[in-house]
């Protein structure tokens, strides 16, 4: 079982490496979206500082969501997903492998680059730390929930937007507490409560999401 998880992970990372750009691209997308906001809103520093947590978190959410299209759809189209269902391993395990690799490729890089972008918005140092921590706990939740959405919209045409429609509402709590934690730190009220709640979401998602995704995948193959 662990072996199967390892192979799925290995496969997806290898694929990501082959496409080289992919990991960098998710990152650059994040950077670009974050950079677009000042262009839309104007360059006043204080206003930008207030917006920063929200903008960064919304951008992370969008970056994660965009990359969901690559989670199951390519495998579905070329028939490898079918083969996974027939692999004789519990589907949940394989799904876990895929979610993990998705997070490694699209979530983790964001966590690492976020402080730099925070600097551009002139966030104070402690807020930067909380930003990183909140993203570290929050982005796996996004990947997990996103997997359910991606599985549900599999093979449905125009799924790119549909998946957004399905998962964004579910992302809302993560967004609120993620951005809230950074805002609270900047405002000096402390972020523990927010982060604890995020941790709770993570635990919940870890327990439920893989099962839901696996079930959705089976349905999609009918």
């Amino acid at each position: 079982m662990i072996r199967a998880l390892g192979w799925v992970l290995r496969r997806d990372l290898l694929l990501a490496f082959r496409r080289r750009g992919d990991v960098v691209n998710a990152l650059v997308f994040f950077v670009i979206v974050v950079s677009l906001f000042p262009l839309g809103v104007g360059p006043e520093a204080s206003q930008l500082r207030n917006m920063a947590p929200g903008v960064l978190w919304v951008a992370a959410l969008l970056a994660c969501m965009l990359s969901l299209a690559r989670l199951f759809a390519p495998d579905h189209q070329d028939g490898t997903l079918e083969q996974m269902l027939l692999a004789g391993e519990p589907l949940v395990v394989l799904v876990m492998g895929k979610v993990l690799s998705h997070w490694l490729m699209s979530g983790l890089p964001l966590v690492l680059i976020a402080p730099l972008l925070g600097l551009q918005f002139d966030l104070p140092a402690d807020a930067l730390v909380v930003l990183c921590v909140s993203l570290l706990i929050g982005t796996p939740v996004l990947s997990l929930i996103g997997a359910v959405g991606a599985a549900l919209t599999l093979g449905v045409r125009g799924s790119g937007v549909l998946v957004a429609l399905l998962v964004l509402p579910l992302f809302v709590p993560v967004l609120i507490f993620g951005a809230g934690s950074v805002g609270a730190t900047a405002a000096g009220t402390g972020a523990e409560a927010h982060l604890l709640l995020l941790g709770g979401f993570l635990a919940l998602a870890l327990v439920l999401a893989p099962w839901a995704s696996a079930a959705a995948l089976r349905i999609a193959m009918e």
Partner: protein
Amino acid sequence: MLEARRLECTRGDRRLFSDLSFSLNGGQLLRVAGANGSGKTSLLRIMCGLVSPSAGELRWQGRPIRAEREEYSRNLVFIGHLNALKDDLTALENLQIAAALGGMPADSGRMLSGLDRFGVAHCAELPAKVLSQGQRRRVALARLALTPAVPLWILDEPFSALDVGAVVELERLLASHLASGGMVVLTTHQEVQVVAHAILRVDLDLHSAALQAA
């Protein structure tokens, strides 16, 4: 032993076939015949457990396959219309991962011999996307050469896109699988020349009287 009991399949408004029963034992080849659109692919997907039939049931060694899906999956290899190759991985890597997920050892020596059997060893290091249609099919089929121990092979038009040499090679492989007690289910519009001690035939055109009339 695989046993189908009064299977029925409905797609949209159409009943593709109904009341279809057969059983398949070790060493037997089942050829599913029928015109285009008669439901061969649908039947094969039902036999894999990917789709559930609208009525009837399938039994593997006497037990319904729905009950122990993973166990049943380990006993079959399915090669469908699609080749299940990742475009960005090389032929070798594709085969390796397919084998590994199927629970086989995945050392590259064995893989290469599998590819070689189907004459695509020289493409082992090419990404699948640059391969020709027939080469892709050959890589997909190379899985069969690695999994002689898996008893049930389910193949949807395995001969499509293959040139004459590859067709012969595949026929030989099927024959040896059957000879060693395996089972093969396949569909094809071409003539099969597989040496087997029993070739069964299910003709879906006969099982869809309702459809023909419509």
